[in-house]
């Protein structure tokens, strides 16, 4: 009984807030066209769930996640390769330092106008902005990970007479893996945020666009349903990537007890 109560505890606050909201919209803001009650939003979400057209929940979600994943693949992939190069070669890092520091601070969404000019409306434009946004954290974190390999391990590889190639494949890359998973987790979060932003601002597809359309056609219940759903999707993705990161940490020899340090 006490066990069950403690499991219910995290739900107390959300239920309280939702109840208050339900009461507020029903009583005080009854005549509002801009607000919907949580129950109405839930109803709208349920309808979307069973809608089998192109505006259905799964297809729209699939579009956003697919585009985010593809953009992440391109951006993070390039960031990983270039980050490795810059991390392993101090000369390359010195040569590229200025370029990186000039381009990196550009907010990725500021690229939307340019991307629209080049790619028009649609998937390719969204992909390019997501790829740009995820490229930088991956580049910087990969570079840092390559430099933070335990120096003692590099001495061990020297003492064992490893070639540069063996040192990279057997020592440096495996030692980097836990930090690369941290970088990937950050990249996934950035990709989702940027994908939804681009859809709200420019690309007439995906969850961001669906939410915008609901808002513009005065359907606050549907808008709130999408908002809630985007939150749920983000939460699930965060849990999955956190698990992956912890798995990598343990698999690569970190002790199980300090996984909480990487979960931060």
């Amino acid at each position, binding site marked *: 009984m006490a066990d069950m109560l403690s499991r219910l505890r995290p739900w107390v606050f959300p239920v309280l807030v939702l109840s208050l909201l339900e009461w507020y919209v029903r009583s005080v803001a009854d005549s509002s066209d801009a607000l919907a009650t949580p129950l109405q939003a839930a109803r709208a979400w349920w309808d979307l769930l069973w809608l089998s057209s192109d505006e259905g929940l799964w297809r729209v979600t699939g579009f956003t996640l697919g585009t985010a994943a593809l953009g992440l693949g391109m951006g993070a992939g390039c960031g990983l390769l270039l980050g490795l190069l810059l991390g392993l070669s101090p000369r390359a890092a010195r040569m590229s330092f200025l370029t990186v520091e000039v381009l990196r601070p550009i907010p990725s969404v500021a690229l939307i106008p340019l991307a629209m000019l080049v790619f028009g409306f649609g998937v390719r434009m969204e992909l390019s902005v997501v790829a740009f946004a995820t490229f930088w954290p991956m580049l910087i974190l990969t570079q840092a990970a390559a430099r933070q390999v335990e120096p*003692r*391990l590099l001495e*061990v590889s020297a003492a*064992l007479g490893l070639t540069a190639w063996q040192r990279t494949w057997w020592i440096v890359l*495996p030692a980097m893996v836990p930090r690369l998973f941290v970088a990937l987790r950050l990249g996934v979060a950035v990709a989702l945020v940027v994908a939804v932003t681009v859809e709200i601002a420019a690309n007439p597809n995906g969850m961001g666009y669906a939410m915008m359309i609901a808002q513009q056609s005065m359907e606050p219940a549907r808008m709130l349903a999408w908002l809630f759903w985007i939150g749920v999707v983000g939460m699930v993705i965060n849990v999955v990537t956190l698990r992956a990161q912890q798995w990598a940490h343990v698999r690569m020899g970190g002790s199980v007890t300090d996984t909480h340090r990487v979960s931060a």
Partner: protein
Amino acid sequence: MALLSFEGLGIHLGGREILSPTSFEVARGEFVCIIGPSGCGKTTLLRAAAGLVQPSAGAIFRQGNKVLRPSREVAFVFQDYTRALLPWRTVQGNVMLALEAAQVPVAQRAARVQQVLKTVNLQAHQHKFPAQLSGGMQQRVQIARCLAQSPDVLMMDEPFGALDAMTREALQDELARLVREQGLTVLFVTHDLEEAIYLGDRVIALRTNPTPQRPSVAAMIDVPIAHPRDHLGVKEHPEFLRLRRELYHYLGHG
């Protein structure tokens, strides 16, 4: 011919003279301990002998060849075993690394790993990861990896310094047995006087802040106690007491 010879070895690091010109030789099969207070350059000397640091003056020769870079014939046991092991490889995998590096034929690797693990009593733990082992066991893994190299010389940098007293004594005895059985040549750095006398055939004491008038090597003393040695016997041996007093004086306490 001496296996290792140090000829006027001097090392400067960051504008400071760590080692003033130092000369001595190590014969094959000899166990030489280097002791001295912190900062006397004993670790630097060992690293130079392994080719991990370049000397500023003089040279080191191994079997008549100048040491310019690390070699697989020299195995190096680091003090910080936690950092020196690959945490993503099992005990077996860590030992295997030495064989992979030396390009030992794949067919021979497994048998060689088993043989080495047996000599350090780690067969039962071979599928564990380093993080699952105690400090003493982790250090044994590192020693096993070094033995797998079949080295000419084993360089050990305070290998037991971070272990508790019981484990340290057990590993000292294990090392002494290995050295006797396999006829290893060992250069062993420690700051523990008793450990140096217990293990060494010869003890070299270094001093801090060497000058041309006061060279790095403060004393070089043979240990005339027969092998095999045991902790109780050696520590009551009159020679042990005499050497300890003498070295204590050289290390600047007297």
